[in-house]
């Protein structure tokens, strides 16, 4: 092999070796919404609330996912609210009277911070019932 050929080969290797193109392809980042399930027993005329913290601002939705007496689904109406913990309760900013549903019944745009979801019996349940609230947040 001639010296020129060898030099050319070395130059090519050196050029390739000096490439800074060591980039790795990355997938776009997507943030999946988080789901909170708040389950419990609601006594007649009672109120319960559940606090959660948002680390990212965005839209929060809530729905009364189930209401049962024993294992029987119940059609009773309850008040569902979204707000901020205050004092010994949850100071609701938005609320709705609702029965169970598979779609969001409440929506709130919220910044980073601590919030709460509240469930209240304002109409007088005939007996204690088991409920589940689903909160979906960023």
């Amino acid at each position, binding site marked *: 092999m001639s010296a020129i050929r060898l*030099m050319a080969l070395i130059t090519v290797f*050196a050029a390739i070796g*000096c490439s800074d193109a060591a980039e790795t392809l990355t997938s776009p980042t997507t943030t999946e919404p988080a789901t909170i399930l708040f389950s*419990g027993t609601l006594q007649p005329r009672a109120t319960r609330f559940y*606090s959660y913290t948002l680390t990212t601002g965005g839209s929060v939705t809530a729905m009364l996912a189930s209401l049962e007496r024993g294992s029987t689904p119940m059609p009773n109406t309850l008040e569902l609210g979204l707000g901020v913990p205050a*004092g010994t309760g949850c100071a609701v900013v938005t609320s709705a009277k609702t029965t169970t549903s598979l779609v969001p019944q409440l929506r709130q745009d919220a910044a980073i*911070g*601590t919030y709460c979801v509240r469930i209240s019996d304002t109409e007088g349940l005939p007996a204690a019932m088991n409920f589940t609230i689903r909160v979906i947040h960023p």
Partner: protein
Amino acid sequence: MKPAARICSLILTLLTTFGCRGDTPTSPTTTTTTTTTTTAASPIYSEEFIDILSVSGSVFYSFTVTQYGTVNISLTSVSGAFVPSTVTLGLGLGTPEAEGCSTTSNVSTQSGAGPQLTGVYNPGVYCVKVSDVGNLYAAARFAVTVAYP
């Protein structure tokens, strides 16, 4: 070694020594350190949390700090039948979480002028929790003063 091989060896050595240096000479950097001092605001709001604490129980109270500053928590009184006013209760400060108050600062204390708990906090929602640490034989009525900016 043949002359051609010598030349190649020399070129190879030079390239491997200097060829991969991707550094670009830069000017000396002057680092300026700016120190920002944020003054903690004094409490400007005050709320009184009065409730009944059951045996082995706990209760909490939420409040919103609107600016970086000092939060003072004072257990000012404890009373009730079969409850000595000197009984020691648990006092905690934290953030509301699920159905409770997740405390990050705790103290077991008797009632007094206080504050028995104090700290500097950022704006946000916080909670004070009062709990029986095993000293109650009957439900106790208590008063806690929360002062915050």
